[in-house]
């Protein structure tokens, strides 16, 4: 009895302790109705403008739907079969991947360098420079596309500067040359969005405790060693999420590329979004089903590539560990 009475028995059993979390949906709705009420506009908006179009595009992908008709005809996998044999779809797919592969590392890397520079106490006017680099972020992509069409054309200052510097022999229209149009788009995109990635990195740098830096300094690490062995390793978790955010951004470049190059010349800068737009709206007979199938197939292929990449990275890590 003594044992029983003196034992530190829980006042309520674990099951009882979890009871409040197991309230039925109905009771939770009755108790916290105002929370759901305030969530409702967001849920409705997300449902109407994200979930519904997503689900609808999957359904449309199975339809033969000329744009001028009110409805389409179910044709099964015909659109996907056509896409697999469409050279221009694969061209756009390659351009989008190339955009991703070149632009994301450039944006992430350059933004990190900028953030490190602006995070240094020795950098003068760092607040001013932060604002300066952030300004393009809040400028509309389409406007930037139009302005850079003028800046990058053969009579523009960039082309003339290249000639003046002896890099090119004659003025070059960088956005209208098949060899440079995509890279011109990449450069403008990186420039436009550099500021926001720089802010992410600056926020990440703020999370590193100052005493870690002080400890490294006391241990005799110079600035380079401190960066390499202390700062960068602590930033790795942020690298993953920042890369992910920028990767998503690199797949949403329609406004910029449409106004800058329109996908041309000769499809040399036609990323997948422009392919979809052209098929859905700019074709002689708009093909809504085919365009939806292109979007769905591109999404699936990107997911497959992401999974393959993740598996590859894990395999490489295991191999490295095994070797060490």
């Amino acid at each position: 009895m003594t044992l029983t009475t003196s034992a530190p028995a829980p006042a309520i059993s674990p099951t009882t302790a979890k009871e409040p979390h197991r309230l039925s949906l109905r009771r939770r709705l009755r108790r916290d109705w105002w929370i759901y009420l305030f969530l409702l506009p967001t849920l409705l908006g997300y449902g109407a403008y994200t979930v519904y179009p997503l689900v609808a595009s999957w359904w449309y992908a199975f339809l033969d739907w000329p744009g001028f008709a009110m409805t389409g005809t179910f044709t099964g996998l015909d659109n996907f079969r056509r896409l697999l044999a469409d050279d221009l779809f694969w061209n756009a797919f390659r351009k989008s991947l190339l955009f991703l592969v070149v632009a994301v590392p450039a944006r992430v890397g350059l933004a990190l360098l900028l953030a490190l520079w602006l995070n240094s106490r020795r950098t003068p006017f760092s607040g001013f420079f932060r604002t300066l680099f952030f300004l393009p972020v809040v400028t509309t992509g389409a406007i930037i596309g139009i302005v850079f069409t003028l800046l990058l054309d053969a009579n523009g200052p960039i082309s003339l500067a290249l000639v003046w510097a002896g890099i090119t022999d004659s003025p070059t229209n960088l956005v209208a040359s098949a060899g440079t149009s995509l890279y011109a788009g990449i450069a403008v995109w990186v420039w436009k969005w550099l500021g926001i990635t720089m802010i992410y990195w600056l926020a990440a740098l703020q999370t590193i405790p100052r005493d870690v830096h002080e400890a490294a300094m006391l241990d005799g690490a110079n600035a380079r060693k401190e960066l390499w062995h202390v700062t960068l390793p602590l930033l790795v978790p942020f690298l993953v999420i920042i890369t992910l955010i920028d990767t998503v951004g690199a797949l949403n470049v329609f406004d910029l590329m449409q106004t800058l190059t329109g996908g041309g010349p000769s499809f040399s800068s036609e990323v997948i979004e422009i392919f979809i737009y052209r098929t859905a709206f700019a074709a002689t007979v708009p093909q809504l089903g085919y365009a939806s199938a292109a979007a769905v197939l591109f999404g699936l292929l990107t997911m497959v590539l992401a999974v393959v990449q993740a598996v590859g990275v894990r395999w490489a890590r295991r191999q490295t560990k095994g070797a060490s």
Partner: protein
Amino acid sequence: MNSTTDNGVGSRRGNLPGAAFAMNRRGFLGTVGAGGLGAMLAACTGGGQSSDGPSADDGVLQWWDQFRPLTSMLEASLFEPYMAANSGVTIERRQMEGPDLGQAIQVARRSNQMPDVHSLAGLDATPAALVSEDWFQPIGGHADFDGTEIVDQLFDGLHRFDGEIYSVPLFSGRFHDATPWVNTELLSQADIDPAQSPATWDDLRATARQITDRAGVPGLLIPTKEVPYLTALVNWLAQSAGAPGTIDWTTGAYVFNSQPFVDALEFLLSLQQDGVVHPSGASMGARDARARWAAGEAAIYPWGPWIIGGLMVDEPEAVERGIDAWRLPCPETTRNVVHRGPGGGVFWVSNESQQPQIAAELLLQMSSREFQAQLASAMDQPPALIDVVAEADVHPAYARNIGYLADDVRISPVPETGNPSTWRVAAESQDIHPNLGEVAQAILTGSSSDIRGELTRLNDAMSAERDRAIAAVAGEGAEVSIEDWVFTNWEPSQDYDQAAYAAR
């Protein structure tokens, strides 16, 4: 359990200062939130407009088009007088860029918000295909179009379907959009007589070189960013070199790989290689090019007859400074005519419209000789009654260009008029890429150098796709065949008119 829960809630309330007001505040916020949400949902019927669309509002007629140069003329000469004479009627016009209009109409169609009257800019589908999908309603029963002077220009498959008139041609088909428009001030600086059109392609090359050398600006501006512009330009140049168009109507065969098309592309390439073409043209659309040509960046800009009307609205100083039109040059001094189908229906009345009578009356007024003369004075596309230009108040360069067009352009046959069922082939056909404009873009940007090979691939692909489409729709019961593209009585030097269709 109940008491514990109640106590918990009660204790939380009790711990809050002003607890008596806490629930009231939540209630207030909840009520406001619910009200706001309700208001938002009530407004969510697309652009804040009624889902019934504008047509449901008695007396309001929505009118969408892309004719910027016609803005003041339509308002002053058509809509305002009509509204003054019909007090219960309000006409609301919205002008958009062509491509934007096409997309807006597609979206409006799917959301039941179609305007009562609209043009087809930006919609590449044939009118017959749209009529078959119940986009429009006939207007012939609401006004006497058969009594107008344009009755000879009403064609089956273009304006009339199953015997019913759906639209009327307000503009003539007798035009091309490759007229070399010139800045006379720059020509004077280069010691060139603006009144003297270069007769041949070589003359034009030499003139462009002279301008580039002496005036210090590129001789020519050719905007190659927009594929449709290039497609049209190559087509007109090829026809000036003797091509019948993209189809030889005597055989029905595509002729993209014929010598005139090769010559046209080689001519454009030679101009570029001469260094007489504005180097920024490759990143310009047609409207950008017009603005930069108007700013004096180049002397010659090939475009359509509507350029002066547009300039009068946006850059009138370019017209005041000096503008003239040259005749489309040919490779040799022997002139070739170019061909274009009859003027199509411009404005169509939506099937959802509750105002077909008003729309038909407006279109009837637009078909009158008086309105056609006013249309000419806006200097857009030439009016359907093209002879009114001679009496209209127009710029001399516009009148001169209309004269050139009368000499150089002939009306070609169209398969839809010969057999209205051919629209199904057009609807079934898939776009071929690279098309003519894209081939030209590839050649001019150095992406490809095999002109004949590219044109042959295009020709083969177009022929194969048409054959496939014919077989597909014929398999569904449509009475179409390749013979519908053959007009054996076509005489290239003559217009293909109603009598020619009847004698076919």
